[in-house]
């Protein structure tokens, strides 16, 4: 599994998507083989060219001899639950016949939080496969945008000229999670102005573990003409190295593991709670749901604290 069994990896990813409990055991076995992949998130408004840019990144990374895993997320229809996953089409040329590239399309299936959990697990699969870089491309709308910040070492925000002025960028609220900004469609005349305007915003990220800041670079790229791509990869690597100069990198990784823990506990507890006998209502216990919930949680926390378990402080 760890080396190159693409078929097994692909099937495991399906199990993760479907929430098959058996996948957890396999993931736990993979864990010792995880931790060497560089995780890059690609986000931005729909139509910004995220997939096309990802294709360019694949080509550049491959030319440097680095293997690549790609997780491309597209939205599911809230009505039919069906999905049209079109990202792969744009990446085909960059990946054709190359065993060093593994692309997997995922449908969002309507649960941003739940999807983030699945994506985290899929990242582990690709990491264990030995991919040097794992790229996660988000849906491009809604909450998934912010979830990516909890997964990736470096978040690349893709903008396009004409998306709006700088005010619009601030309003979108997603510049807060960007480590690197790429202004795509750099072949358009307005691109230089957009770059200037975004640079003028002086976006910075504060290192949560040390007294220093990362100045968010703004790079003009043209995925179409393959311009600025090598520079963009350079900036992504710069940021990756920057986070390693303090505890920032391990903070990111800790947050990711914490998110996985939360997702797993939530999922397990939800199943347990769903099986609570509703006769408890007639017995009076559930008639006060507030008190019942408080008692339920307190009991778990107290039981753990009493036996000196790590991780929770007794109240």
């Amino acid at each position: 599994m760890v080396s190159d069994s693409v078929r097994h990896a692909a099937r495991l990813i399906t199990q993760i998507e479907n929430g098959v409990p058996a996948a957890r055991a396999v993931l736990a076995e993979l864990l010792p083989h995880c931790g060497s992949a560089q995780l890059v998130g690609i986000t931005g408004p729909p139509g910004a060219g995220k997939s096309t840019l990802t294709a360019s990144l694949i080509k550049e990374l491959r030319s440097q001899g680095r293997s690549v895993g790609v997780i491309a997320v597209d939205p599911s229809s809230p009505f039919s639950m069906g999905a049209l996953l079109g990202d792969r089409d744009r990446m085909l040329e960059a990946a054709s016949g190359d065993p060093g590239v593994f692309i997997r399309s995922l449908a969002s299936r309507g649960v941003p939080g739940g999807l983030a959990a699945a994506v985290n697990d899929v990242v582990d699969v690709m990491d264990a496969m030995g991919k040097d870089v794992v790229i996660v491309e988000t849906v491009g709308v809604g909450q998934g945008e912010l979830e990516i910040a909890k997964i990736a070492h470096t978040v690349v925000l893709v903008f396009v000229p004409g998306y709006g002025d700088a005010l619009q960028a601030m309003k979108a609220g997603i510049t807060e999670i960007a480590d690197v900004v790429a202004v795509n469609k750099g072949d358009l005349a307005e691109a230089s102005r957009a770059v200037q305007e975004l640079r003028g915003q002086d976006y910075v990220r504060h290192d949560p573990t040390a007294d220093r800041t990362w100045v968010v670079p703004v790079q003009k790229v043209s995925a179409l003409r393959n311009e600025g791509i090598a520079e963009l990869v350079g900036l992504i690597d710069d940021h990756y190295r920057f986070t390693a100069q303090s505890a920032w990198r391990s903070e990111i990784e800790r947050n990711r593991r914490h998110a996985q823990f939360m997702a797993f506990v939530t999922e397990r507890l939800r199943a347990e709670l769903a099986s609570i006998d509703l006769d408890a209502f007639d017995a009076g216990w559930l008639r006060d749901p507030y008190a019942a919930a408080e008692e339920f949680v307190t009991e778990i926390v107290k039981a753990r604290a009493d036996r000196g378990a790590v991780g929770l402080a007794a109240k």
Partner: protein
Amino acid sequence: MSKEHIKVLLAKKKIDVHGRGTKLLARELRDAGMEVVYFRFGVVDEIADAAVQEDVDVVGVSVMTSGQIQIARGLIPALKARGLDNVLVIMGGIIPEVDYEPLYELGIHRCFAPGLPGGAVAEYIRENVGTATLG
């Protein structure tokens, strides 16, 4: 066999500019609740590589400018070589009826002619997914 999330790879030849049929079908399958990976291929191995990485239940190939026999001759062994021996493989588009039988002998499970009522492909997939084998 019924499956909660049916994943379909819909492939169309890159040099084939006739895309309306595939796109219409992609939309139809999406509306039937399926997850459709749509892409244009240059060589048959690209379909097989995509099918294994995406772990799809169904591979659909659209053919408008002939070559269906050659495609099937390459595709079925390529899928089997990658361990995908229970994937449902269908073809559609401008395929002469005289080719249906040879295509079925090569391992294609079903060919669809243009002009079928909406929902016909989705219904076939839902009824046959998971039960097909590639001999």
